[in-house]
């Protein structure tokens, strides 16, 4: 049962209404800056709408461009040596490499593209570029990790888009919901056990109820709907918690976000952990 208007458009309109509302709220209360996680929700919804109305290929390459943006910000912040330049170039080039594999739906190669091929080629390039061996381990670690988190994890969203645009849309919606709850419950304060449990206690029932409510769109069984509903907020919390520490190490200040200074990383951190795991859940249990 597919409705007349694609789901991404519905969500886009909903987000528009929400933003206008929040904008009015921010105007009324000058001291509250706009939520950083909302900024990149627009980007994701734009990608989804391109996929829904126009072409999947264009959408997946837009997503690749966005991955490039995130990875570029990460490399701009992390302490790299002059010797690492070829390795970093290799890391950038593995974005189109992976994207082509999504585009042609070659799952077996996609899933090993970065964890096998890029993770072998990048260290090789790092060592090729280096006359100095000192710092090689840290460089390889930093480059490979950034590649994994900001390209490979994000790539799973593209593959989900290939399965069904509706699924990807609902995934983004679920993450946004969990993000909103996190922003309300925790905000910019450090994540403690109490706050984390509090956030889950509120977010899990909401996303579970949401997943059950959209069953006509997803065509998931009740148990799986509940499972994904519980999975999304948990992974959002874990991802935010982990990336917070990374941000602090990189010198990203949540109160002074700017492009090139952690804005993209901060805005997308909730999606990074959730995307691959929800994707594999769906692929293993639900995709026919």
């Amino acid at each position, binding site marked *: 049962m597919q409705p007349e208007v694609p789901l991404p458009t519905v969500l886009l309109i909903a987000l528009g209404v929400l933003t206008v509302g929040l904008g009015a709220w921010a105007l009324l209360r000058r001291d509250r800056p706009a939520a950083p996680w909302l900024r990149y929700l627009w980007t994701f919804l734009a990608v989804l709408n391109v996929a829904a109305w126009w072409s999947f290929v264009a959408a997946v390459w837009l997503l690749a461009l966005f991955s490039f943006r995130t990875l570029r*910000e990460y490399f*701009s912040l992390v302490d790299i040596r002059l010797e690492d330049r070829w390795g*970093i170039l290799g890391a*950038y080039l593995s974005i189109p490499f992976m994207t082509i594999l999504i585009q042609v739906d070659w799952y077996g190669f996609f899933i090993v593209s970065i964890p096998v091929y890029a993770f072998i080629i990048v260290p090789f390039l790092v060592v090729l570029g280096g006359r100095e061996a000192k710092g090689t381990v840290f460089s390889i670690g930093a480059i490979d990790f950034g590649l994994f988190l900001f390209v490979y994890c994000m790539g799973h969203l593209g593959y989900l888009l290939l399965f069904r645009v509706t699924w990807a849309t609902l995934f983004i919606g679920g993450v946004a919901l969990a993000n909103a709850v996190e922003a309300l419950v925790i905000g910019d304060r450090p994540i403690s056990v109490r706050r984390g449990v509090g956030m889950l206690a509120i977010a899990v029932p909401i996303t579970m109820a949401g997943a059950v409510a959209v069953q006509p769109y997803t065509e998931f069984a009740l148990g799986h709907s509940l499972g994904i509903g519980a999975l999304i907020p948990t992974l959002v919390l874990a991802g935010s918690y982990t990336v917070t520490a990374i941000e602090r190490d990189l010198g990203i200040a949540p109160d002074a976000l700017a492009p*090139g200074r952690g804005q993209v990383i901060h805005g997308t951190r909730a999606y990074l952990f959730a995307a691959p795991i929800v994707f594999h859940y769906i692929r293993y249990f639900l995709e026919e």
Partner: protein
Amino acid sequence: MSGHWRSPRLWVHLLVLRPLLRLVFGVTVVGKENLRDLDRFVLVANHNSHLDVLLLYTIVPVPHLVRTSAVVARDYFARFPRLVKVLEYLFRPVWVDRVQKDTDPVSEIIGRLDAGENIIIFPEGTRGDPGRLQEFKTGIGRVLAARREVPVVPVHLFGPERSFPRAAPVPLPLWNHVTVGPPQLVRGERHEITATLQRAITDIERTVSAGRHRRTERPRRTRLVAVLGIDGSGKSTLSRRIAEAVSVRGRVGWVGDTLTLFEGGAPQDLQPLQTERLREWMGQQAKQAKSLAHYKIPKLTELLLRDRVVEETRRWYAPVLTVTDGSPLLNMTAWAVLYREEYFTEEFCGRAVAIMSSRGERLGARDPLLKQFPELRVLLRLGLNRLSLPDAVLFLDVPPAVALERIASRGERQQVHETEEKLTKLADAYRLLCRVLVEQYGVPTLRLDGRRPLDDVVAEAIAFVAAAEGNG
């Protein structure tokens, strides 16, 4: 003013260069409003990369774009004639030849300013080491001193030194931050102008690069401070007092007659090391020696063992500082002077230190140094040439007569070398060594007058140690 819209040059900048820079590299501009209401300006920026001039053109307000010229080095680009044509078109540069110096760029820049144009200039003159600001050339001061009514805008570029440094063959997509400082009207003469501009850019740099990610550095070896002096000069007491005082900041090892660790100003309980016991016994043997010939071997062994204790302290107890009463390396060199003082010059002395601390110095089979210091051959053969060179040296200078008096008042048995003649020679040897250390090794050295009250000497020594630590 409205005619500039018809210039194709403007559209190349607006439609090609600016979007390309933003898409590939990413640009953040802070303080763009500082350029808003100026009718003419000079942009001054740090220079690290070929991207710099492109980045500066992205912040130039659109009405100014067609009448802005950059100062570019011709001698570098002359190798690429096609590129010169592109640059000629895009930036209408003021060419500077750093090799032939046949043109006077200053008068040309002033001419362009008078014609109502804006100037982009990199006062460093060359791209230099990535991320390090070099001394500004005074050409900028000459220009501004001649045209004081033109506002100068300091700009700091952060990022090009990583995205396209001098050593790299290709640029990498990495983010660039452009920070525009407030426009200034200059005052003073040209050196002053240059210096203030350099300071303005350094100030911006400090704010922009605060909190950058840095990999943790490897823990440095703890620093070693040696107190030299003849017997009876009070070096043992002085070194102990220094260790006590510094230990407020952390653990300090003191290698005197015994090894003691100080923490928080108080000595810590410690089981004596095996090496230390051995060293003590050797020390006794040396003290009981009846002639200088009998004194030599036990003393040499004692010094070698003492160095071993120093090494073990630094290795196993990880102190922030190790203070030693004497220094095995330097004492041994000084003793060599004492035995064969006739030929010992600064050069010999420096080479002996280099060999014993294994600093890449070679010793030939018939080296004249061996004549002066035959024990070196044995030391080398036994692999005992890795003695530690102190990071800072204090020399406690006391007249030998005073020192002998002090020794007598201790009531100990007088050692064979403790005569006024030998002690004078030893003090001279230490002085020679201190000169060598400063001149050849850059080790900070301080001479202290041992006749002054102890508290004054200690205070001066502690201040010196703190300063030496800060430098390293």
